[in-house]
């Protein structure tokens, strides 16, 4: 049994489960911060909340994912604000998602009894519903358990003035055009304590209670009855289960793949079809370090994987919406691509620093992303591959989009000779990154193929073919190390980069070629440490270090599969799937020494890479 528990941000429980990064003897929170590995995500297709194992919701941005936070204890345990809910006595914790859903169920076990908390962001429904709604249902399982709850709303990344008052019997917090109503049923009445709303609830076996946050933005609050809220919980559960039940993958890692698909669905911005890279900003790649970035944007870099995965899982509607959004968003900068776009399609993503403490003092806390203005040549390859996959999936490319694609191929012919920042967005001087050149080749190769099939204008096809050959010459003569028998990070270097694996995954050359076998071996030899694969060796213009990039491990598994080494791929995947947290989620990186998660969470690319590797292995083993 564990620490005394107080709802909110105090350390209060130890993790008694199989979770290797949270051994029972370690405190759950350090300085008020829960391990990143300890979070689960719930959401509604517009925003995402992160729930810690001790029941505290430490992250929620409203009205949409890239809006300022109302609960930001993740980035400032003291001032950020949170929604705590847990037993008043010491407890142990078990968690799961309700099968096939993004509805979280946390079971608290105390000496006096067992209680479940179901956390859900409802999806709306018939009738008048709140603009956004976060509901926590407390269900008595056995014995009798007293729980306390505490809502500490801090709008505007804890920078906006918040007023808490009672209106018509309901406690309401307001800040500018944002408002939040706390409604509770079968609990003690909510009490205002300064800027905090607190309450308690005692449940016995078979009893239940509800605490619901109705959230409004630029409109009046909507108050609901308990029956309406209960109805929305059930409808939301059914909607998620219905959606995940349609995923067509039925292979060896179905649970992990379906969970990853559900995570991706959380990151899909339902109003537009854009897919955010992650749900958070500024979770550090190194505790106390400066590598803290805002990932609540849509990266063109991820587009080919996203399209491949959506089509591979049978999510045709999502694939189509994503492609329409991508082509629409990139229209403003056509034929050039920005590295990333905002979820509403904006090309302008200025970076600024917030005055927050940072996750375990990891500063700066950034919002916005300055990488948006970099030149990353690989994005053209990924976008052309996305269009190619979209067309291969039986979808039409209309005349405007076809012209857009052809225009990008023309642009690639003009700019591929330039050095760039590469897929990893280094802030050191631009280089001739091998992966960027390979993706330029992929761009022109796909454009030629689409032109041959008369899906895009063929006027520039001859030039595209010629330039593609020049790119191949450049890569094969200047980006290959005879000493390492491997492609190298950039022309003239002897460094390695795991992103080279994308070449074989996206069809640069023959996967069975010796050069690819040598490159895969070199990556394993020089970048792999056990299960973990570092991104690269060499300079990147940033201080400090980082953990192992989980995506690279999945890329390696997929590369092994497509190059015919299926047994090695399966063995690696079996172990990688075990690296997820207790509810099947991955962050961007992992600390090889401790297994602790690092970086933004949950990370779409990690889950995309997992699904993509699982699909590739399924293809490779299909009879």
């Amino acid at each position, binding site marked *: 049994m564990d620490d005394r528990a107080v709802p909110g941000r105090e350390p209060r429980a130890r993790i008694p489960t199989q979770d290797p990064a949270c051994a029972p003897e370690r405190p759950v929170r350090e300085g008020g911060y829960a391990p990143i590995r300890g979070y689960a995500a719930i*959401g*509604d*297709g*517009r925003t995402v909340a992160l729930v810690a194992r001790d029941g505290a919701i430490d992250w929620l941005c409203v*009205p949409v994912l890239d809006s300022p936070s109302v609960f930001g204890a993740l980035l400032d345990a003291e001032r950020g604000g949170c929604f705590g809910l847990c037993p008043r006595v010491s407890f142990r914790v078990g968690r799961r998602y309700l099968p096939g859903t*993004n509805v979280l169920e946390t079971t608290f076990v105390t000496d006096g009894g067992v209680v479940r908390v179901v956390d859900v962001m409802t*999806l*709306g429904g018939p009738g008048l519903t709140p*603009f956004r709604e976060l509901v926590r249902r407390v269900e008595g399982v056995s014995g009798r358990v007293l729980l306390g709850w505490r809502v500490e709303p801090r709008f505007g990344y804890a920078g906006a003035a918040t007023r808490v008052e009672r209106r018509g019997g309901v406690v309401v917090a307001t800040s500018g055009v944002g408002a939040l109503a706390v409604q509770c049923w079968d609990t003690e009445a909510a009490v205002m304590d300064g800027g905090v709303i607190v309450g308690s609830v005692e449940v016995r076996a078979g009893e239940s209670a509800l605490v619901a946050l109705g959230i409004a*933005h630029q409109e009046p609050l909507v108050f609901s009855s308990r029956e309406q809220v209960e109805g929305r919980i059930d409808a939301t559960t059914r*909607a*998620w289960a*219905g*959606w995940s039940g349609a995923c067509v993958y039925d292979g060896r890692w179905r649970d992990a793949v379906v969970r990853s698909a559900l995570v991706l*669905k*959380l990151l*899909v911005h*339902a*109003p*537009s*079809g*854009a897919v955010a890279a992650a749900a958070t900003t500024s979770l550090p790649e190194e505790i106390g370090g400066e590598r803290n970035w805002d990932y609540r944007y849509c990266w063109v870099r991820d587009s080919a994987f996203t399209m491949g995965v959506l089509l591979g899982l049978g999510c045709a*509607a*999502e694939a*189509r*919406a994503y492609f*329409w*959004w991508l082509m*629409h*968003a990139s*229209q*403003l*900068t*056509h034929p050039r691509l920005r590295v990333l776009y905002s979820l*509403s*399609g*904006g*090309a*302008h993503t200025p970076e600024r620093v917030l005055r927050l403490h940072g996750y375990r003092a990891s500063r700066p806390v950034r919002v916005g992303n300055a990488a948006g203005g970099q030149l990353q040549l690989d994005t053209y390859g990924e976008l052309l591959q996305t269009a190619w996959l979209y067309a291969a999936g039986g979808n*039409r490319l*209309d*005349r*405007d*989009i076809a012209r857009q694609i052809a225009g990008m191929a023309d642009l690639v012919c003009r700019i591929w000779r330039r050095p760039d920042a590469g897929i990893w967005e280094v802030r050191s001087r631009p280089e001739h990154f091998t992966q960027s050149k390979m993706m330029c080749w992929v761009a022109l190769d796909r454009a030629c193929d689409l032109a041959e099939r008369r899906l895009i204008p063929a006027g520039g096809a001859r030039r595209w073919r010629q330039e593609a050959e020049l790119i191949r010459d450049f890569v094969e003569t200047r980006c290959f190390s005879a000493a390492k028998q491997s492609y190298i990070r950039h022309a003239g270097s002897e460094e390695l980069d795991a992103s080279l694996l994308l070449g074989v995954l996206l069809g640069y050359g023959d996967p069975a070629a010796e050069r690819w076998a040598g490159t895969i071996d070199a990556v394993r030899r020089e970048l792999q440490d056990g299960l973990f694969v570092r991104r690269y060796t060499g300079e990147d213009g940033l201080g400090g270090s980082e953990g192992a990039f989980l995506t690279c491990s999945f890329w390696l598994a997929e590369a092994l599969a497509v190059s015919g080494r299926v047994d090695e791929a399966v063995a690696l995947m079996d172990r990688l799937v075990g690296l997820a947290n207790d509810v099947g989620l991955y962050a961007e990186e992992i600390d090889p020494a401790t297994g602790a998660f690092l970086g933004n969470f949950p990370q779409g690319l990690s889950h995309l890479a997992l699904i993509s590797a699982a699909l590739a292995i399924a293809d490779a083993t299909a009879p």
Partner: protein
Amino acid sequence: MSVWGAIAGGFAGTVVLTTALRAGNQLNLTRMDLPFLLGTAFTSDRTHAKALGYLLHFLVGLAFALIYYAIFLAIGRSGWWLGAVFGLAHGLFAGTALVNTLLPLIHPRMGTRSTAAPTVALLEPPGFLMLNYGPQTPLVSIAAHIAYGALVGGFTSLAR
């Protein structure tokens, strides 16, 4: 004032409005494409949507010209400048209520601020003043609507 003048002005104004928006599109000033938005309310085939959208846009342009004409009649005045003022009001209305608020409500493929998972919209909502389609969108849209209004007002006052 003549209703035929208003109709002629509506036609000419819609040609200019559509052309201005398309030019803004090609100059990378805005991702706004009114015919496309209108057409996709009826079909998800992008090519057909644009053709249908142009037709609908002209019909809507003529309908608005008749509304302008009714107001000109009611106040007993018309002219280029008055038409331009109407166009300014029309552009603001389009950006704040018509396209931003009303169109997403009736458009089956456009997202709204309330669209939630597992639904995915095919078209992103325009946002206030259609700013989601680019920061220059309000300027392009309002300028185009002013030109439209001026033409409707001018043609109406010229025709006897």
